[in-house]
């Protein structure tokens, strides 16, 4: 009798561990609270939709998605990633919203040889000299949206450009990106306090300067305040409002309401992009989340799960063979919502970018619609510093 119990116990333990080894583990750092909570919510919804559509499996294998909130805090994220790597032994990592967080957690993941697929930030450091075979910029390189907006301004012959961003490193990066795409000197440039709530002083300066267009990078609530106050001051009558998608996406639109109507913004994706995989995604998303349109963030998160699913399938579930996994990821052989795209040597995408405009749909709901293509095959400028092959 004792022997039977023992063997049953052994079998269970053994069998259990076998199943355990087959499970593909994805560590996901969520930012559903903290400064990026609004974007974090979009990312979570994108992930969960893809997971649901794949029946919780990856490449047909059982999968475990370990979603932990880290509140957009780099220190918290670093601890969480250590736990993911050491205790949970994850096979893939994705999630955080902020570039600062991405840079904080990347080294630990690289040394543990865990592929990191970003669902949003694409810091220049990881695209240039600090590029790494384990990092995949599934989304975009940080400067791309701004360069596209700069090109739009140049193509439309805006002679007087006024540009605005918060006074912190990313703010400067985004404005520099715009200037690179614009290609000539801007007439005015303002940096505001990070987290500013009132833009009356800046708007008065804009009124005095009489520019043709204003380009602004003000993420989250800062942008919401700016747009509302811009329109309330009557500036929208003569001045075009232009931004990267961070300034005019679905996380912003519902909070601003009607004043955002007519705003131009640039991204590598739009909800009405004519790609079958995209139509499927947008329909499923709107069905799942009460008719809400997905944002760029949700689309990117959805893509991350699809990319992992395809890679696991291509290596037949043998995710411990990291070389094969990296090769499969780099092939980007899946139905992306952006259509077919490829990676540059620095593992950042070479893809098209578009101009979008906020309009009303048939139900009166505000939504971004595609206006035109800005870049066909955009590759970031940092790729030349990357030593990868």
């Amino acid at each position: 009798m004792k022997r039977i119990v023992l063997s049953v116990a052994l079998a269970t333990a053994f069998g259990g561990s076998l199943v355990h080894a087959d499970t593909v583990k994805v560590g996901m750092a969520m930012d559903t609270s903290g400064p990026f909570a609004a974007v974090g919510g979009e990312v979570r919804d994108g992930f969960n939709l893809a997971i649901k559509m794949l029946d919780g499996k990856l490449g047909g294998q059982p999968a475990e998605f370990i979603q932990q909130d880290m509140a957009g805090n780099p220190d918290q994220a670093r601890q969480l990633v250590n736990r993911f790597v050491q205790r949970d032994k994850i096979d893939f990592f994705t999630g955080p919203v902020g570039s600062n967080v991405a840079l904080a957690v990347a080294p630990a993941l690289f040394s543990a040889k865990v592929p990191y697929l970003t669902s949003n930030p694409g810091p220049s450091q990881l695209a240039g000299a600090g590029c790494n075979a384990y990092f995949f910029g599934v989304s975009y390189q940080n400067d791309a949206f701004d360069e596209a907006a700069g090109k739009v301004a140049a193509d439309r012959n805006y002679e007087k450009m006024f540009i605005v961003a918060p006074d912190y490193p990313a703010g400067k990066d985004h404005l520099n990106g715009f200037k690179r795409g614009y290609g000539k000197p801007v007439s005015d440039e303002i940096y505001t306090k990070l987290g500013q709530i009132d833009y009356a002083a800046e708007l008065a300066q804009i009124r005095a300067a009489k520019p043709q267009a204003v380009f602004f990078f003000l993420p989250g609530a800062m942008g919401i305040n700016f747009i509302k106050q811009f329109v309330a001051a009557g500036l929208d009558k003569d001045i075009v409002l232009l931004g990267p998608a961070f300034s005019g996406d679905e996380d912003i639109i519902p909070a601003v309401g009607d004043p955002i109507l007519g705003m131009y913004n640039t991204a590598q994706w739009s909800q009405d992009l004519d790609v079958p995989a995209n139509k499927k995604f947008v329909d499923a998303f709107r069905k799942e989340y009460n008719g809400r349109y997905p944002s760029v963030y949700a689309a990117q998160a959805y893509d991350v799960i699809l990319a992992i699913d395809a890679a696991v399938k291509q290596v037949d579930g043998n995710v411990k063979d990291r070389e094969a996994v990296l090769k499969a990821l780099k092939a980007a052989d899946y139905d992306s919502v952006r259509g077919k795209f490829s990676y540059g040597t620095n593992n950042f995408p070479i893809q098209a970018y578009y101009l979008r405009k906020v309009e009303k749909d048939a139900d009166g709901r505000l939504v971004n619609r595609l206006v035109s293509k800005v870049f066909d095959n955009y590759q970031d400028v940092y790729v030349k510093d990357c030593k990868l092959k």
Partner: protein
Amino acid sequence: MSLILITEQLLNGLQFGLMLFLIAAGLTLVFGIMDIMNLAHGSLYMAGAYVAAETMQRTGSFTAAIIVAVGVTALVGIALEILIMRKLVTRDHLAQVLGSYAVILIANDLVKMIWGPTPVMLNMPAMLSGPVELLPDFLYPAFRLMIIAVGLIVALALYAFVTKTRAGVLVRAGASNRQMATLMGVKVPVLFLGVFTLGAALAALAGSLLGPITAVQIGMGEEILILVLVCIVIGGIGSIRGAFVGALLVGMVDTAGRAFLPMLLRNVFPADVASSVGPTLAAIMIYVLMAGVLVFRPSGLFPARG
């Protein structure tokens, strides 16, 4: 630099200062009278904005939104006072800071449970959503003018209440010497409940007025609370007049710093240096102001306790 630009910035400073005053008034009275450090005051401001947004979406009337927001937040204030603040009175400041900080965290999560993590929409009424022409070629947002008007009316009413009414006498007595006031027969707990509720209502008014021009979102209370604390420290704790002057000073200095410092610096430094140094300097100007005031008047400009 044109005269119009300067006038516009003065109006901006006045508008911002008046809103800070609405929040500062409640906070300073509560701190002045009960000696309670209530960090959760910003959460009442947030509650006001969210309730206003919800009411606006349901009824479409901005007036209704303000009235409901003020009423509901006053009720929340009463509950908060009876359930928590009353218990914290006897504890030291550290316990009060921790206790009211816990309220902030709970409030933020409650708001997230009810309205979700994304900011919610609160539009200004269509009538006030455009600019008005004050002078030829001088446009100013109508909504901000309305805020200035409401802020001035409330400030005057509050001043009349504190200086001219019997309740106001009790409030002042409680603020300048609580023990003595108690000995003279003032029912301090009742007085405190009243002041706390008034403070909550004022914060909600500020929240519902500022909501349409800023963002209604989680954490909006903490952002503004820091500025409000600066106003109170400058003005002198417990004094309505002090809160008024402090708020206007902070509003003016903040606006002027952001508007004119980068322009002035541009005359001295190259443009890229000026555009990066200017805002940083502007951001610290209100704290320089506070430090300056404290050097010469350690208890603020108009301290309630002499």
